[in-house]
């Protein structure tokens, strides 16, 4: 090619899209899970005390909290029931481990169908390596 600095992005556009990074084209959905995911969903760590998390989550106006590690990999989820409990358990004891997730590149239409089929109120969006992108709520899609 005659250029001094040429690089090969070996993983290609499939890798790019699967991480919810900007991509376009006739096959790309107009709105994706990555576009609608709420990135401000509260998070906490395994060793946190449930009582502390409960107070923070309620104060932020949420009813769920995502448990992540230091690399933002999703480990579990605290739902309404866990957060409503007045026990002094740890997050690890109270959480639901390994929640269902979808990739950022899934189209919003397909995502809503999946949420309705499974009778869910929300779904977590993560990268292929399990890192949290955000939470999609059913109300944000309907």
């Amino acid at each position, binding site marked *: 090619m005659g250029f001094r600095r*040429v*690089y*090969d992005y070996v993983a290609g556009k499939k890798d*790019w899209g699967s991480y919810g990074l900007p991509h376009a084209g006739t096959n790309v959905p107009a709105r994706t899970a990555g576009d609608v995911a709420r990135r401000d969903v509260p998070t906490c760590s395994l060793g946190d005390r449930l009582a502390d998390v409960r107070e923070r989550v309620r104060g932020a106006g949420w009813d769920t909290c995502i448990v992540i590690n230091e690399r933002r990999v999703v480990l579990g989820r605290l739902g309404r029931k866990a957060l409503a409990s007045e026990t002094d358990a740890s997050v690890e004891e109270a959480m639901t481990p390994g929640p269902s997730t979808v990739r950022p590149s899934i189209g919003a239409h397909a995502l809503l169908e999946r949420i309705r089929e499974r009778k869910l109120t929300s779904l977590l969006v993560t990268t292929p390596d399990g890192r949290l992108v955000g939470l999609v709520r059913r109300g944000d899609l309907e």
Partner: protein
Amino acid sequence: MPASIDRDQVRRLIAEEGAQLVEVLPAKEFGEEHIVGAVNIPLKELDQRASRELDRDRPVIVYCNDYQ
């Protein structure tokens, strides 16, 4: 032989050094899906078109679908 880079390195090169993204697949595939900001120069035409259409002073990042 171009050096292989990952997604984070692509983002850094674009943000910090104005790297040019080039999809080397045929035009039809580019039209179906491409990285925003990329130009399409199919591999067969690269030698012919690169010097006309790309800036020699900026890094060039080529890509296709995935590991091929």
